[in-house]
């Protein structure tokens, strides 16, 4: 809501929720996929998210994170990606053999690099 926006209108322009595929880049995705090709195999069943140890305590959704990474939407992941405990349960449940643990690890790494303009 923008009711309290401090201007003479009492509101501001809402930020678009749109994923504009052409306005973002896929640097993080490419970084992850190059190092962990199994990342491509995710078909978003959500098994990882269901079994996730960290996910029992806080919003951490690997399934959705994978989607965001693929679309180049990094902003929502910056904090979420650090919540993983790397326990590896997701590895055992993934029906497509995605090396999920490495995906999170690489994503966190890539985002840090992105922020340092190293990607």
């Amino acid at each position: 809501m923008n009711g309290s926006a401090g201007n003479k209108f009492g509101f501001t322009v809402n930020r678009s929720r749109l994923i504009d595929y052409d306005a973002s880049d896929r640097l993080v995705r490419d970084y992850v996929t190059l190092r962990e090709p199994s990342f491509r195999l995710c078909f978003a069943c959500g098994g990882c998210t269901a079994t996730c140890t960290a996910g029992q305590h806080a919003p951490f959704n690997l399934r959705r994170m994978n989607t965001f990474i693929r679309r180049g939407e990094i902003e929502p992941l910056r904090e979420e990606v650090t919540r993983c405990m790397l326990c590896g349960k997701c590895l055992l449940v993934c029906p497509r053999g995605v090396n999920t643990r490495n995906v999170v690890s690489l994503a966190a790494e890539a985002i840090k690099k992105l922020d340092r303009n190293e990607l």
Partner: protein
Amino acid sequence: MKLEGKKRVWAEYQKEIPDDHFFYVRSCIRQTFFAGSEQTFLKIMRDDLGKDIYEDPRHTTCTGIGYHGDVVPFETIQTVVARHFALATEAGYKNIAISCVTSFGIYTEILETWKHFPETLEKTRENLFRATGRVFDLPVSISHASDIIYKFRDEIARKAKYNLVDVRSGKPLKVVEHIGCHYAKMFPKHGIGGAEFPHVLVGMIESWGGDVIDYPERRHCCGFGFRQYLVQANRGYSLSASRKKFESMEPYRPDFIVANCPGCAMFMDRWQYTLKELDGITYGSNETGIPTLTYEEMAGLILGYDPWEMGMQYHNVQSLGLLKKMGITADPAKRFLTKDGSRLPEPANLLNS
């Protein structure tokens, strides 16, 4: 772009528009913000096209804004609309001409409801009779006022004093047409050209020499979205929808926007100022804003009406440049003078003034 494809779609969505004898119902927003437009429409109908168009001063709002704003129940609005039908019946008119797209959607929705659920019609008749003692016949046809201009677009073209053409280069003007959502998105078969590729304004623009811009967000809502606009805190949604459209049309360098819905015309005009204030961005060539016209004003200009008499000076984005491009001489100094020379109030914060 394959024009044949569009023509095929347009051919599929044609509707019967009566030739004459209309009962005119006005629009709350149009008569408030573009009072000259409705007057222009009546003038064109009566003076230029020689049609019989009647309006009853007793007709009221359709309460569509209240209905979409969740404060007017469906039974109520049905009864209000039934009262308008009763006025038409009493005056002996069977063809309704509607100024507002919201009303047009309401009328269509109600008639469709009555068709599929006849008991609601009976209930409405009963409600209307109990409340006012009036009875009504169902209208034979429902037309949006833009449908009627569309029907007579070629006749207007024959009488044209100006065209949608840059008089200096001879090139057609680039026009963004915007169709109100409730015109055809709810009931595509009631709109000329359907919902995806509406033809109602395209037909006018092309008949009058302009080029239509088919930009990616063409179908997108202007941002009115009753609940979004009516609650001040929600207006950011409304504004962001308009911005999406402006950003999408901007690369085409449009000469002006024309809308068939009063709300759309109002928003796409006024939000340009708001966006300038909030975002610091002014759209349009040389960042002067994109003039936003009603279709009545567009038709009026073609027929040589005085822009100041039509009230075009009360748009937030001024259209002096456009008029010049079309070769219309209108003295800027006379914008805010009445015919007898006394001063009209001059709005602040005009764009492209």
